[in-house]
């Protein structure tokens, strides 16, 4: 019996058990990606949105679907193309002759988990509409403001920016995403398992919900109460300072980015059943959180490597 476990309220105990079951189920579907799964769930718990940057076919959609089903959330998917219009996303008012009034047809954005596939294919206008919805958690159409469901979680995927015919997201909009995750190829063992099981879509469809929206909301509330001690806040500030002074980075972590780092670290700690944030929680989410926020001076370098070096060089106070 540790001090840590004593501090938890009873509801949190059941939540921890539920989260463990969730993770176990997700791990069984998406093979060999435990870190990414946890980061995705962290993102969900921290009220953030997730950006997956990877090639097609590595399991982005599967991750999103599995997450949605396991969490018992309503899921929709939009393929972003160059001709996708904002209205295709948010919905449109059409004339209803019977009621002789405009009726609003909700777009795909009115879902609890939205998978925005290949977001950098769309025009900046459409991207802007999505990002506005993500930020405001509401949609304004025809002078009426309609709130989006709660929870509202966007998983956007984007191809690496070098591909032709893409409009890369501007930095300010990238900031709306809490984390970037790269899935990458599965490791040989997981890949073999995948091959042997003969595709995974079947199993994704068979998943049952472990959480529901209400539970998730109360979990999100509890995440905000995770304790962050003074030395941990010192550590966050040191990290921010290190990014701001690092010669390889054009700009450092903004205060908003720092707040995001704290809430992500809180969610990660919550996910691992801890009542307080530890430096390893911060380290776990740091690269995913910063890689899309911190532009490099020299594009040929790898941002992950630079951030990793910052982590190993910044002393934990």
């Amino acid at each position, binding site marked *: 019996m540790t001090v840590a476990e004593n501090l938890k309220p009873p509801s949190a105990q059941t939540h921890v058990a539920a989260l463990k079951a969730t993770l176990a189920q997700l791990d069984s579907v998406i093979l060999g990606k435990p870190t990414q799964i946890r980061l995705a769930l962290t993102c969900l718990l921290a009220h953030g949105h997730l950006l997956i940057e990877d090639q097609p076919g590595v399991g982005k959609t599967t991750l999103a679907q599995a997450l949605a089903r396991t969490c018992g959330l309503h899921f929709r998917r939009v393929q972003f193309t*160059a001709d996708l219009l904002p209205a295709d996303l948010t919905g449109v008012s059409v004339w209803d002759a019977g009621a002789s009034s405009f009726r609003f047809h909700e777009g795909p954005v009115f879902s609890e988990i939205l998978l925005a596939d290949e977001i950098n*294919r769309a025009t900046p206008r459409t991207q802007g509409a999505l990002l506005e919805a993500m930020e405001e958690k509401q949609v304004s159409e025809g002078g009426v403001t309609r709130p989006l469901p709660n929870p509202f979680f966007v998983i956007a995927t984007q191809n690496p920016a070098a591909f032709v015919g893409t409009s890369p997201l501007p930095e300010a909009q990238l900031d709306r995403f809490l984390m970037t995750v790269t899935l990458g190829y599965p490791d040989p063992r997981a890949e073999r398992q995948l091959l042997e099981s003969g595709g995974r879509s079947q199993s994704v469809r068979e998943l049952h919900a472990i959480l529901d929206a209400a539970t998730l909301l109360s979990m999100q509330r509890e995440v905000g109460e995770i304790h962050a001690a003074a030395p941990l806040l010192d550590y966050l500030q040191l990290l921010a300072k290190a990014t701001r002074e690092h010669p390889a980075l054009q700009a450092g972590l903004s205060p908003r980015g720092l707040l995001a780092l704290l809430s992500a670290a809180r969610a990660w700690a919550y996910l691992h059943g*801890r009542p307080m944030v530890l430096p390893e929680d911060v380290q776990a989410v740091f690269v995913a959180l910063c890689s899309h926020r911190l532009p490099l001076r020299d594009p040929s370098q790898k941002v992950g490597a630079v951030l990793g070096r910052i*982590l190993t060089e910044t002393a934990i106070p």
Partner: protein
Amino acid sequence: MIRPTRFGVAFLGLILLTLIGCVNYGLSLGYGLTFLLGGVWVMTASLATRAARTVQVTLIAPSQATAGQNATFTLSAQNSGPDALLGVAVESNQGQTRWDVMRVPAGQGGTLALPLAARVRGPLQLTQVRVYALDGLGLWRAMLPSAAVLAPDVVGVTVFPAPERPAPPAPERTAPGTAEGQGRTKGDEEFAGLRPFASGDSPRQVSWRHYARTGTLLTRETDSALGTARLLDWADTAAAGDTELRLSRLAAWVQELRQLGAPFALHLPEKTVPVGQGEGHIRTALTALALHAPLPAPASTRKAVAVVLDTGAMRFTLLALAFTLLPSALRQPAWLSVLIALLLGHSVARTLRPLGSLPIWLLGLTVGLAGVMLNSEYGTLLGRDAGTALLALLLSLKAAESRSKRDGHLLVALGLFMTSTHFFHSQGPIAALHTLLSAAVLLGAAARWAAPGQEAEAPARTLRRVAGLLALSVPVALLLFVLFPRPDRPLWQLPLGGQATTGLASEIRAGEYGALAQSSAVAFRADFQGEVPPPEQRYWRGPVYELFDGESWQQVRLNGRSPSIEPGGPTWTYTLTLEPSDTPWLLALDVPSSVPQGAFTTTAFQAVSMRISASRRRVALQSQSARLGRVEDEGRLRYDLSLPTGQNPRALALAQSWMGLPPGERVRSALNYLGSGGFTYTLSPPRLPVQGRIDAFLFGTKQGFCEHYASAFAVLMRAAGVPARIVGGYLGGEQNPDGGYLIVRQQDAHAWTEVWLAGQGWVRVDPTAVIAPARINAGLQTALTTPDSTAAPAPSLLQRLRLRVDAVQTRWNDLVVAYDGQQQQQLLERVGLGGVGSAPYLLLMPALLLLTLLPAFFLLRQRAAPPDPAARALHDLSLRLKLPLLPGETASAYAERARAQYPTLGPALEDVVRAYHAARYAPHHPDSLKTLQSALRNIRP
């Protein structure tokens, strides 16, 4: 690579200078100070070396710069060790050099802005960048290894020409080919061409017609007309003037168009920048302007940089100096102290508000006047007192005209030298403490000068750091103090200057001893091996006076046969610690039987050393009661019967009346006469006439002290035909219960007589004992109040306290102050090292030196311990496991690594990590720290 700074060289010079001074004047404590400073010198070198190993710097060029302004380069430093001080020297190709100092806190990073003047357009590069790690005091600088300085080969920036201000508006000229919408830019207005399909292209853009015809996917591209672009032409600026002014005008136009956000093209004689817009385009244009040939040469005017006095460091230095000079105020004339205080006060005021410094002529005048006054005061300017007074004055004058860092360093060095001069006057424990404190604050001042104002730290922190440095230097200083060869004789003899000492004189005049009796100054201390002789035997034999001219008794040198000595009775072995005096006399207990080397016994049984010692000295002696001079030179005996003729007729007549008695009875009669004649013992007797003093005393005043009685008795004896002489010296001594030694003070000075009786030789007769027996048994104070008392009263509390202090001082003097070549030799022989030059000494000395540096070496290798108790506990654990914590390593990761090395500790380490997390990162819980500590106790590697 490490080398001393200029201040460091001066500091070394100071050490050598004080060392020479100590050798010359035999100042034992001075050696201590010198070696302490030497230790600091070595320790700071290791500090600088260490800092050079833990610091890594990165040099970053500014993104842009404009001529006439500063281009601010940035130096970013990361420090994985304790606090470090970095010195940065850069040189630009535009002829500017800069020296800056930055402090990088322990385990953190820091940045330093290096604003360099961008004097002219064109490339501004740092041609030379040197980064040094400095020690805290600025004595050393260690160059950072090149791997620790991250910078491109050439760190530089292109300096754009300064825009002309105010400039005429840019001419309304359109760039050729853009007027009619001929320029195109990416857009969606008109079809521009086809390109191969790329995945992600919208199907709407695909040219299906082309696909149907050829089977290849092509994507349509569209664009839109570029708006009217302006042309900035070199030819339009002819009115501006020379090349530079024309470029300035173009730069101003570029800025104007940047404000408007308008596209433009730039035409220069040798370069053309095509139409474009946006920040990138503006950069290209300005770069073209900046690099337009021919590049101007930077004006080589070397502007004198205004030196800003670091007021904080100056104030610190002045206060340190004031503290250092404090003891001199007790010695030098009051007017000098006031003058120095005024000068220092003015200097302090100068650091607080902008006051003009004192004019040089005034300072010069002050030196001249004060020099004259000092000369009249001391009779010289070179002696010890005059010299130190002059040095103090010069120091305060230097402070008054100090305006730079170099002056500050000079003040510190002079202050340290001044500190060592105090040892001329006192080497007591308090003086030593004062010196230590002065050295600490002066070194603190040096630390303040090393780090400039904005990088300075709190004074308390500086002093703490200096104290740590001194503590590190103590072992090496102690070792050198004990083992460093101590020459016995000075390198060359220097005048010490007159020093008034009280003590026995070479002749006895009226009132001589009365004056001495007022002084409680210590004459010497005697430390006995074994028992201390009883009070009535504590006669310390000094000069023997045999020539009486009616007024004074004087010593004489009589050639003749040496008298015989027949020892018998107990032997006393003891060590005398003699305070400085102007005489070579060794005050041996009556009578000396063995004297140390360099001393001899006179024919009057007085122990005399070969040289006069101006400093405190220790001699080992042996005494034994003996029959003296049973066989005595006839000439001497005759001499000891002579009296001045025609004086003291009544005394002579009295003595004649005893002539019929045997010599022994004559002595007894004289003593009886004194004992029953109504004589009193007093220190303030009435004045006696020059002629017939003895008559006047014996038959008139009848008041006096030892000197009077001894003199009268000797005269009576000589007149009665018994050879007699006066022996001067000390009687008694206070036994210190704390140290077991005797303290003999000047007030214990005494005079007694010796008479020669056939068959017995010289016999001591103390006539004072008849008048005031207490003088012999109890001491002077008792003798004055109760002359008949036989023992001294018990010492009062105050006296006992004084004795205790004296005991401490004596131990100090024996161990520290009197430590010289002789004692060193004895010590070395006792530990079996032979002597200073012997082979074991030469072998052992370097080994011991290395040993004393070892703790400092280990201490310096350690990282700074964190202040938080939980974090410190983990840090301590890492030391215990000999597995250092990495900077970005979490407790769990560390435990993982430790478990790999110590597999048995797994569960215990888990407990520690859990407890650590609870103590460090959980909401505060009172027991968490205890849990952590008990978990840590379970770890036994």
